[in-house]
C-alpha cells in the first residue's frame, strides 16, 4: 500500500502552484473563495488559460489534448486548484461530450469537434432531461425523424445548465418508438442557432439563472451530427454519466468550501469565542472535516482501482452520494454560522456593477443562496435515489 505522493509528484505540485500563482486573476479567486457567481467572460477566460497550458481536459487521452496525468497528478491538480480558489469549470463539452466523442465518434467528428471544445469555439449545453423524463431518463420523448440527410427534431428539453451561453447542445432524442424505451434513443449534436430552437430561463429559488428549458420545433439537424449508431444513445449516455458522477462528487469544491467555512467560523463569534471553538458547532465541523478526509481516500481508491478506464458504476455512485452530501453539509454549516445575516438577499449584489457596501460581514451575501442552490447536488446528474438504485443492483444482484 503506497498512498503517499512521490518526489516526482511533489515536483509536479510545485509546477501547478506556480502556474496558478501566475495565471489566476486574484479577482476571480476572490469570487470563487466567497461563492460568488462568475460571469460568462470570466469562465471563458479561465477556460482559455487552462487550454493554453494543456490542462483543460485531465481525463482525455493525450492524443486528443489530454495532459496524460497519473492518478496522483490529477489528485494533486485537484487539490491545488481548490487551495488556490481557481474556478471549477463544469464545461459540458470537456466533461461529457469529449469522452463520448472520443469513444464513439467518427474520425471526422473528433477532428471537427474536439479542438473546438478545447479552444472554446463551442459552448455546449446538455439536452437530456425532459419534463416527463427526469430520474426516469429513458422515458424521454423528444423526437428526431429522419428526412433525407437530416433529422427533424421536435420536443422539449429541461434543466439545460448554462444553455443561455451555449451555441451547441448534445441531446438524447427518440428515433424509434417501437423498441423498449432504452432502445430507440439516439445521441445528436444540435446547433442552437438553428431555426426552431428556443431557450427559456428557469429561475431558481435563489434567484439565479443557471438552468433553462430548450424547445425544438421542426429543427433540422444534419445526419452527420449523429454520434455513433442510431438507437444506441442510451449506452453512450450511461458511459457519459459515469464521467459526470466523478466530477459531481466534487472533492475539490468541497475542500475549498470547507476552507471558506473555516474562515467564516473563525470570524463569527459566539459566547465570546470564535464559533469554530464552540463545542456543538465545532463538532459539526469536525464531523464533516473527517468525512471529507475519508472521502478523499475513497476517491483515490476508486480511481486507482479503475485505472485508465472509466469509473466502475457502483463506486462512482457512492462517490456521488457521499460527496454531494458533504458539500451540502458544508454550505449548510456556513449558513448556520451566519445567524441573522443569512437572510439579507440583494440579488443585484451578485452582479459586477454593484458597488454598495455589503450588508453584514463581507462573506455573508452568497452563503444562503449557495446553500439553496446546492440542494441541486443530490438531484441532478442522477439523484441520490437513482444512485442508490445503481448500488443496489451492484451489491444485491436482485
Amino acid at each position: 500500500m503506497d498512498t503517499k505522493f512521490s518526489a516526482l509528484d511533489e515536483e509536479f505540485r510545485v509546477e501547478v502552484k506556480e502556474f496558478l500563482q501566475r495565471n489566476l486573476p486574484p479577482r476571480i479567486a476572490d469570487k470563487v473563495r466567497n461563492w460568488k457567481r462568475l460571469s460568462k467572460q470570466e469562465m471563458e477566460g479561465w477556460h482559455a488559460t487552462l487550454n493554453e497550458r494543456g490542462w483543460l481536459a485531465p481525463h482525455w487521452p493525450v492524443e486528443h489534448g489530454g495532459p496524460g496525468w497519473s492518478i496522483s497528478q490529477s489528485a494533486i491538480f485537484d487539490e491545488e486548484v481548490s487551495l488556490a480558489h481557481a474556478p471549477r469549470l463544469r464545461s459540458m463539452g470537456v466533461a461529457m461530450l469529449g469522452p463520448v466523442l472520443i469513444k464513439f465518434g467518427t474520425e471526422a467528428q473528433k477532428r471537427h469537434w474536439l479542438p473546438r471544445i478545447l479552444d472554446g469555439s463551442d459552448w455546449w449545453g446538455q439536452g437530456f432531461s425532459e419534463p416527463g423524463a427526469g430520474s426516469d431518463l429513458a422515458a424521454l420523448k423528444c423526437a428526431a425523424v429522419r428526412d433525407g440527410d437530416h433529422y427533424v427534431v421536435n420536443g422539449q428539453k429541461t434543466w439545460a445548465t448554462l444553455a443561455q451561453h451555449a451555441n451547441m447542445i448534445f441531446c438524447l432524442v427518440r428515433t424509434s418508438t417501437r423498441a423498449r424505451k432504452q432502445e430507440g434513443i439516439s445521441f445528436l449534436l444540435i446547433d442552437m442557432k438553428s431555426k426552431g430552437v428556443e431557450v427559456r430561463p428557469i429561475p431558481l429559488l435563489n434567484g439565479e439563472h443557471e438552468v433553462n428549458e430548450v424547445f425544438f420545433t421542426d429543427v433540422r439537424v444534419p445526419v452527420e451530427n449523429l454520434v455513433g449508431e442510431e438507437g444506441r444513445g442510451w449506452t453512450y449516455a450511461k458511459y457519459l454519466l459515469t464521467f459526470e458522477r466523478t466530477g459531481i462528487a466534487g472533492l475539490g469544491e468541497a475542500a475549498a468550501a470547507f476552507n471558506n467555512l473555516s474562515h467564516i467560523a473563525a470570524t463569527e463569534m459566539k459566547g465570546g469565542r470564535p464559533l469554530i471553538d464552540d463545542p456543538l458547532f465545532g463538532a459539526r465541523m469536525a464531523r464533516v472535516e473527517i468525512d471529507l478526509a475519508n472521502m478523499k481516500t475513497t476517491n483515490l481508491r476508486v480511481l486507482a482501482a479503475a485505472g485508465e478506464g472509466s469509473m466502475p458504476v457502483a463506486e462512482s455512485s457512492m462517490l456521488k452520494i457521499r460527496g454531494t452530501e458533504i458539500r451540502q453539509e458544508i454550505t449548510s454549516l456556513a449558513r448556520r454560522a451566519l445567524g441573522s445575516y443569512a437572510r439579507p438577499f440583494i440579488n443585484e449584489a451578485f452582479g459586477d456593477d454593484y458597488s454598495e457596501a455589503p450588508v453584514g460581514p463581507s462573506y455573508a451575501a452568497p452563503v444562503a443562496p449557495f446553500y439553496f442552490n446546492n440542494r441541486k447536488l443530490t438531484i441532478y446528474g442522477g439523484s441520490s435515489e437513482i444512485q442508490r438504485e445503481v448500488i443496489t443492483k451492484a451489491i444485491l444482484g436482485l
Partner: protein
Amino acid sequence: MDFSHPHHRQLMADNLGRYLSQHYPIEERHRISQSVAGRSPQHWAALAEMGMIGALFAERDGGFGGDAFDIAVVFEQLGRALVVEPFLGTLLAGTAVALAGGHDERLGEVIAGNTIISFAADESMSRFDHAAISTQANSRDGAWTVTGAKAVVSHLEASDLIVVSARTCVSPGDERIGLFLVASDAVGVTIRGYPLIDGGRAGELTLNDAPAIALANDGLAILELATARGILALCWEAIGIMDRLKHDTLEYLRTRRQFGAPIGKFQALQHRMATVSLEIEQARSSAINAAVAFGDDRVCRERAISAAKFTIGRIGTLVAEEAIQMHGGIGMTWELPLSHYAKRLIMIGHQLGDEDHHLERFMKLRAAAPA
C-alpha cells in the same frame, strides 16, 4: 385533556384562513414581497380591522386576546399563506411595550394598525444573546439618547417606532440592558433597507445619539418574555408552513409519474415521507408544549420554549430539504410555491436563536429546573 381550540378562537383562525386564501394567494404574496415597501398597507389595515393584531394582545393592553394559543393560531395561518406582513415585529415590540407599561395610547395605535412598530435587539456580534450587545443608552437631564447599530430588523423601513435594546450603564460589571422607544424619523436614526431571501424586507439600523423614550432601565426579563412569545409565533408559523409542504409533497408523490408509476409508489420515498409526517407531528407537539408553558414558572416556560425552537429548527430543516429533494429539480424553481415555503422555513431557524443556541440554553436551564 382537550386539544381542540375553543369556539371563538377556532372561528378567528378560520376567518383569517379564509381571508388569506381569498385575498393573499401566492401571486399576491410575491407581488408584495418584491415591492419596494415589502409589505401591504391595504392588507395590514384589513387584518387590523379583522382583529388579527388585537388577537396578539390581552384586553388589559388594548387587545382582544393575547393568550399563547391566540398567537399560535394566528401565526399558523400566516405560515400557511406565507404572509410577509410585519406581524412578528409587532408582536415582539408590542409585547415589550405592553410589559413595560405606560404607553397605552401608542399600543392602541399599533393594534389599530395605524402605527408600525419593529423590534431591534440583535446586533452583528450578539448571535441571539440579548445581553451580548454594545448599543449604549445615555441620559442627560432626564432625556435619553441611544447610540449603536442593530442588525437585520424586520420591516425596519416601514416602521414608525422601533423598540431598541441598549446598555443603560457604563460602569464596568454592570450588565443592565434597557429598552427604549425610538421614532424612525428621529435625528440620528439611519436606516438601510434590503430584501430578504425568505421574502419581505428588513434593514440595518444605525443610531447616533438618537433621542429615545425609556421603556425599562433593566429590561432583560421583558426582553426574554417578549422573545418567548416571538419564538412561540415562529414555531406556529413553521407548523403552518410544514403542513403546506407536506400537503404539496404528498400531492406531488401521488401525481408525478416516473418509471410508469406515481413516484409515491416507490417504497424508499414512502418510508421517508412517513418519517417526515411523524416528525411534523412531533414538531406540532413541541409547539403545543411551548404554548402551554406560558402558564408555568420561568424555568419551565423557557425550557419548553427552547425545546420547541430547537425542535422546529431540526425538523424544519428536515422537512424543507426533503420536500425539495422529493420534488427533484422542479422543487428548486422560483415558480413553484414550495421553494418559497422551504426558504422561509429554513430562515425561521435564523431568527430568535437557532437549533444549537436553544439546545445549549435547554441544557443550561436544566440545572435550575425542578427534578
